[in-house]
């Protein structure tokens, strides 16, 4: 078990820069999840930590040791591959014992550890089978087992659930969460599924185009996204964005006018020279409700209705052409073509500058805050 420190990690393949200076601190026992769109460099960063890719520049420390030039075997890490990477010519038992055998451990110790891991992962009955005789979920567990037996300082997972079907994914997700509680080990986990990120992580690292956009707890990212990118990436369905202009700036207060809506006063600290500028207003679908009960209202024509049973998503088209998603109760009877009004309390709104940076909210109400 160990902490992990990344200091200005750069990576390029030839002339192509893939990572542009990543700084990150992972504490002992923390479950860290990298999320981001495809191609943003999550796998590359994980493989750098694993020692499977060279670092172009920057420092990587595991447990206080600089490991830049150390080979994977000397880093005390264990990786679970997306494709599982089980050896087809070995039984489950041999697959799990392989790392220990390379470590030259004695037979009895290997046996004890493999059987212990098999017990935790409920693989006892499958030890003599070949990987080809296992289901996807079982293979996944063998891959995890192979990492566990080595008792590494840090576990690395690269999209471990992406080859499983939806039901199994939920189940395995729970098992991984349980495993983390049991082993209390440091875990770095890559996914592009934000539900996995939200449910598993102590700390989420949102990456975009080879940079870290924001690091924080799931709730911090949900309630206090620092950039428009994070706001749009975390949450499902995605946050609504619409362009508004700033009409008036006062200390801790800003007045914006929404196209097709009434001017509203929002609790943000905005610089005077933003006056008259176009900024972006962000509102989460689940914070909007039908009717004009909130301080901030929008009107639009419903052009799509999605009924999910427990809730209904209404897709509104505003006067300026922007779309807004509203989560209405499951019993909502709104039809396509109707014009509806939806509103939200000012405290739930997010405001982003033209450059995509979030303006600071003042006096955030408890229900829209990550503070406990």
């Amino acid at each position, binding site marked *: 078990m160990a902490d992990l420190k990344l200091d200005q990690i750069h990576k390029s393949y030839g002339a192509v820069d893939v990572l542009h200076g990543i700084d990150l601190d992972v504490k002992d026992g923390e479950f860290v999840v990298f999320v981001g769109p495809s191609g943003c460099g999550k796998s590359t960063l994980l493989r750098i930590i*694993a*020692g*499977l890719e060279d670092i172009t520049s920057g420092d990587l420390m595991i447990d206080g040791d600089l490991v830049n030039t150390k*080979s*994977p*075997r000397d880093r005390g*890490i*264990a*990786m679970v*591959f*997306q*494709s599982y*990477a089980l*050896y*087809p*010519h070995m039984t489950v038992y041999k697959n799990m014992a*392989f*790392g220990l055998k*390379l*470590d030259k451990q004695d037979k009895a110790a290997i046996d004890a550890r493999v059987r212990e891991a098999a017990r935790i992962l409920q693989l006892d009955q499958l030890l003599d089978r070949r990987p080809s005789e296992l289901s996807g979920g079982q293979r996944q567990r063998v891959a995890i087992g*192979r990492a566990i037996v*080595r008792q590494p300082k840090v576990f690395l997972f690269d999209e471990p659930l992406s080859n499983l079907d939806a039901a199994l994914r939920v189940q395995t997700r729970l098992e991984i969460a349980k495993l983390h509680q049991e082993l209390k080990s440091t875990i770095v986990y890559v996914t592009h599924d934000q539900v996995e990120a939200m449910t598993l992580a102590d700390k989420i690292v949102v990456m975009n185009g080879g940079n870290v956009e924001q690091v924080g707890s799931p709730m911090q990212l949900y309630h206090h996204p620092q950039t428009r990118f994070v706001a749009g990436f975390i949450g499902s369905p995605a946050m609504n964005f619409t362009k508004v202009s700033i009409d008036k700036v006062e200390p801790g207060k800003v007045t914006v006018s929404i196209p097709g809506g009434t001017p509203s006063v929002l609790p943000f600290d905005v610089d005077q020279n933003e006056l008259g500028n176009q900024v972006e207003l962000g509102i989460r679908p689940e914070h909007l409700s039908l009717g004009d009960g909130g301080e901030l209202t929008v009107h639009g024509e419903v052009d799509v209705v999605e009924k999910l049973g427990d809730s209904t998503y209404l897709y509104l088209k505003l006067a300026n052409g922007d779309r807004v998603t509203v989560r209405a109760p499951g019993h909502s009877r709104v039809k396509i073509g109707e014009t509806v009004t939806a509103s939200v309390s000012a405290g739930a709104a997010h405001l982003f500058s033209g450059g995509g940076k979030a303006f600071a909210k003042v006096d955030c109400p408890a229900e829209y805050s990550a503070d406990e």
Partner: protein
Amino acid sequence: MSNGTSVKGGGTFRFGLLLLAFPLMLWLFLLVVLPHIDLFLVSMRERISYGKYEFSLINYIEFFSEPLYWNTYVRTAVMSIFATFLTLVIGFPVSYYIAKFMRGKGKNVLFLMCLIPFWVSELVRTFGWMILLRESGVVSNFLQWSGIADGPVEMLYNDATIMVGLVYTSMLFMIVPLVSVLDSLDDSLIEAGYDLGGNGFTVTRDIVIPHAMPGIASGCIVVFMLTLGNYLTPNLLGGKDSLWFTEQIYTQFITRFNWESGSAFGFLLLVLSSLIVWVGLKLSKQTLSETVG
């Protein structure tokens, strides 16, 4: 026609298959099975006088009682096994490099470069080696010119040269199956090996080679058979002393016009290659169907 309707699906399918396989069967029968049956029959008879033959084992007895014959036989087998082994040892890293380190265009170019020697006939290729290696050849001249040697150097007509020629001739047949089997090895399996604490040696031994085993076996079988049955290379590069078993067969058929003992030798060569391939498969725990499939 009317009573065939009940099994129509299966029947037509099987008939179609038979029709498709027919040319292959005919080819196998006419060119492989039939000559070998005849070879076997011819080898089991003795010529009494013109047009008169009798059943006898004299040809086989002759083979075992004449040391030159079975010495050549054993020597050919040992040299072929060694040549196969050498081809594998040289071909494996090359194939690994082509399959795992090269991408896209470079890979095709490298692969083609292995193929280039096969654009000229084996005869011309072997004469190429002779031009290089003979007493008045390129290498000998270079050594004299540079002062490393003071007289002409003869590099032909020894076992090492035969070996070089044999390895060179059969390299492609080792590389093709190896590249294709190594191509199918997922990179993550190799990476996982390093991740689990392996080094270059253990990863190769425990992961790459077990995976490549079918390709290694099929490459070795092809190379071994080609080498064992090679006539031109040992003959031209080894000269009179090459003592290759195919030369003995040639001598029996063509020079001595002794078809009976030639057939016996031919049959013995078939037995030898089948036996060694079988032992090789058993030792490497491969099956023929796995290797070919």
